[in-house]
């Protein structure tokens, strides 16, 4: 699978590493080259400096041939906009974006974006752990 990941923060870099290890063709985009320090030395994909809101940059990242686009920058609005460009301009078959704000996530989910609110999910996990009572170390 050919995947373009926008945002090389902790999540983006981790996802890039996992997909790369499994043999997928990965391109990571970030506006700051310093972010690429998070990629492991054996990373076999492409790291590209550029703003994914710019359609030219997305083309350079190979979005036209990509099977999937994942956007996990720090900005919800940036993620929303990039995801919509990938979906509606480049017709990428699978587009996933992170939206921290649960309310905005809800709206864009109903608008047809595959949006994940890590806030909601993580809060849920914490709550379940607390309710279970016992400490589990994993």
């Amino acid at each position, binding site marked *: 699978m050919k995947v373009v990941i926008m945002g090389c923060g902790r999540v983006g870099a981790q996802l890039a590493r996992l997909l790369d290890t499994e043999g997928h063709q990965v391109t990571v985009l970030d506006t700051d080259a310093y972010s690429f320090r998070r990629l492991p030395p054996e990373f076999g994909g492409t790291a590209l400096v550029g703003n994914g*809101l*710019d*359609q030219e940059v997305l083309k350079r990242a190979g979005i036209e041939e990509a099977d999937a686009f994942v956007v996990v920058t720090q*900005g*919800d*609005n*940036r993620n*929303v*906009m990039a995801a*919509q*460009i990938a979906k*509606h*301009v480049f017709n990428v078959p699978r587009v996933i974006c992170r939206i921290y*704000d649960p*309310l*905005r996530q809800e*709206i864009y989910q*109903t*608008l047809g974006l595959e949006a994940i609110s890590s806030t909601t999910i993580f809060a849920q996990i914490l709550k379940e752990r607390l309710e279970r009572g016992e400490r589990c170390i994993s």
Partner: protein
Amino acid sequence: MYIIVVGGGRVGYYLTKALLDEGHEVLVVEKNAAICETINDELGSICFRGDGCEVATLAEVGTGRADMLIAVTGDDEDNLVACQVAKHKFNVPRTIARIRNPQNEILFKKLGVDVTVGSTNIILEHIEEEVPTHPLTHLFTFSDRGLEIVEVRIPPESTTVGKSVEELSLPEESRLILVIPKEGKPHLATASTILQAGDQIIALTSPETEAQLRATLRGN
């Protein structure tokens, strides 16, 4: 009309001032506390501190009853999201977004923003007008109809000088409106109007056929 302005920067400030002068009910949503204070001091208590892309903020300022939302922050993505949230969550009938990157004009329209205003394009157009040799100048755009009014100058070396309008095969979407000759009075363009060197032609056209119109009128 109740109008919500997202972004209290320079554009937001002067826009709000103009809208207030026209007698509208205006509310500005601005993240920055200092900017909020300035607006409240100078324009009256009309600035709400908050993130205009957030549902909770927009709910609090009564976006549900707004007739229009205008997003004029400096970031295209923030303007897009503010408009989309207003449109899809609060059913605001008209949304206007400021854009910095001209590329986003088509995208924003596709994503449901009613009107986009790009300062880059506007600046370019105004500079174009000041360049005397520029063959075509944009005078006005009806963005919701996909039409524009342009001005084309006929230079003396044009092969169309001396020809009548009906002899030219103008693009179907184009209509010549007015001819302003170098000397003499302006007159309405008709089929029998003869093109003269130095004429300024005011025409209605679609952006797609703009280049064709210019080429046909100037004979190149």
